[in-house]
């Protein structure tokens, strides 16, 4: 886990505040709100955390933020809750994310496809907040810019066959299928069945599809027409630094939400340091350590950051996933790229705007 790396770096480089250790609390939210609120309450009250990194599913973020973090005045930074719904929260400026809202990604993907000359697609999306959020943003932008959505259908996860769904979508006459699902879930099944039956020629996925599972299970040779968008740190030094470090501890820097998790954890640590451990000041500190003004801090540079904070110098964290200049809603703008499969791995195909 990349957040783990951040914690380790912080602790190795002098720890937080007066040499105290940053202790990770692994909450188990299992995506459902009952467990998420339970885990968050425990973290806030029993462990006494001053910031929460997570949870992973948007529904869980909504519940944890609404019922625990916001009322308790604890900052919550989610590395993976991408639902546009999170932006709408009445959050007293306590909810942040290091991952851009699906809204951005869906729109960016729509524009990119149109630019590449793909103007007729069918869309299959997982019927949950993630799939639906992406799909609708995509659809709105795509149609707005003159594209033609020839099929648009949600599906439930865990079904054994999606062939009839695919046949239905293919009936619209598009030769490109856009899948908003997870690469190790129903999206994989769908991709497999579409490929096996020759329903579509080109496949485009959202970031959820950019997972190792399709390559491992379907074989890279079958995925020549498959591309997936994903947020990237705009080709930056920060990203390189992180990739280096993460590979060293045996992680896969290309996996989903790795960079955002790392950044979320590192940012949380910076903000806590800056706020001097005062819960009430963490949100403000979080904005100040990432607002684009001040000395640049790259991933892993904890010691430097700590010294600068101690000296009262303004710092600005440039993360692996991006610069993280939060807007009023606590969102970050997305920088995306379209990936393709090459030599058994995802490589950047096109930068997206």
């Amino acid at each position, binding site marked *: 886990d990349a957040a783990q790396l951040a914690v380790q770096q912080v602790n190795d480089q002098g720890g937080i505040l007066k040499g105290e250790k940053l202790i990770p609390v692994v909450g188990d939210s299992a995506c459902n709100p009952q467990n998420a609120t339970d885990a968050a309450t425990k973290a806030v009250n029993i462990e006494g955390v001053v910031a929460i990194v997570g949870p992973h599913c948007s529904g869980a973020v909504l519940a944890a933020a609404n019922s625990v973090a916001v009322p308790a005045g604890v900052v919550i930074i989610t590395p993976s809750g991408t639902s546009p719904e999170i932006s709408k929260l009445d959050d007293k400026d306590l909810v942040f994310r290091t991952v851009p809202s699906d809204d951005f990604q869906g729109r960016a993907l729509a524009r990119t496809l149109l630019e590449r000359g793909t103007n007729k697609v069918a869309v299959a999306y997982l019927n949950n907040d993630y799939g639906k959020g992406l799909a609708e943003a995509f659809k709105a932008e795509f149609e707005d810019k003159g594209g033609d959505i020839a099929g648009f259908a949600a599906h439930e996860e865990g079904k054994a066959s999606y062939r*009839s769904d695919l046949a239905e979508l293919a009936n619209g006459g598009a030769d490109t299928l856009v899948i908003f699902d997870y690469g190790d879930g129903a999206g994989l099944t769908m991709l*497999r069945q579409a490929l*096996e039956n020759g329903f579509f020629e080109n496949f485009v996925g959202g970031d959820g599809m950019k997972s190792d599972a399709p390559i491992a299970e379907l074989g890279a040779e079958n995925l020549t027409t498959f591309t997936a968008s994903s947020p990237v740190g705009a080709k930056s030094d920060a990203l390189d630094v992180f990739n280096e470090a993460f590979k060293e501890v045996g992680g896969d820097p290309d996996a989903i939400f790795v960079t955002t998790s790392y950044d979320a954890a590192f940012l949380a640590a910076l903000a806590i340091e800056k706020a001097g451990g005062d819960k009430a000041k963490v949100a403000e500190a979080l904005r100040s350590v990432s607002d684009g003004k001040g000395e640049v801090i790259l991933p892993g540079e904890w010691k430097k950051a700590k010294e600068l904070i101690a000296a009262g110098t303004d710092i600005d964290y440039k993360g692996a996933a991006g610069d993280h200049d939060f807007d009023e809603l606590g969102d970050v703008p997305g920088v995306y790229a379209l990936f393709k499969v090459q030599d058994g791995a995802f490589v950047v195909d096109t930068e997206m705007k």
Partner: protein
Amino acid sequence: MEFLELLNFYIIPGLVLGSIYALGAVGITLVFAILRYAHLAHGDIATLGAFVAFAAVTLLGLPVYAALPVAMVVTAFAAVGIDKLFYDYLRERPRIVTVMASLGVALMVRSLVQVIWGVDAESYIRGIARPENWWGIRLKDREIVTILTMIGLVLALQLFLMKTKWGKAMRAMSDNPNLALLSGVDNGKVVFLTWLIVGGLCAASGFFLGLNTELKSMMGWQMLLPMFAAAILGGVGRIEGAVLGGLIVGVAEEVSVIFIPSEYKAAMAFVILLLMLLLRPTGLLRGKVL
């Protein structure tokens, strides 16, 4: 819509899916008829079976189809063990207690699979297999194998139940347990045999689901409800009914996409089921005992 298209993209997938459901539903119906409770761990035992086959493929290097019998045997004994450990001593209790116990078993088996094999999707054969074209009908080898094996297993089971002494004992036990006892049938042995068969069928259904899609730790649990629907649809206790029910549920799920929004596909099994209960509560074939 063209007939061939309907066949290729709706009916055939439906039949393959239906065969997988059928294998599970037959097991559910056996447990229901002979032991008389709803077995909620059925789907997760199927998952276990699928992953045992996976282990046989990856660890022992067996060819995929050779892994099926291995998985069936291992899972059959696992099912017997589960019965001995968790259900046996509840036999005198109200049935609800055993139903709850089976829910507990479902959780335990699933988490065991997750601890051992993780939660990522796996598959028996990497890569994809494109279907062959038989005069316009598109079929993959594995689909043919799925349907034929299902038919073979069910026929074998029917023959066993009809012709052999212990098959008759199982039918007798499901018909009139007390009288079976009075006829000298050892109920312990019947229960043992039942679980052996149920476990084997479970593994087969999990295996084929894994073969036709991927292996996931939740795959069986997600199949549980359609399988129950199939069993009830066919008339509880009827083997051929369960097969018929499985095929109907499978085909209906696939074909439903033409008529209703596809996010409601998963509800299809229940719509059929509720209609069935309303119109003919005994199931398609009058159910109750084998």
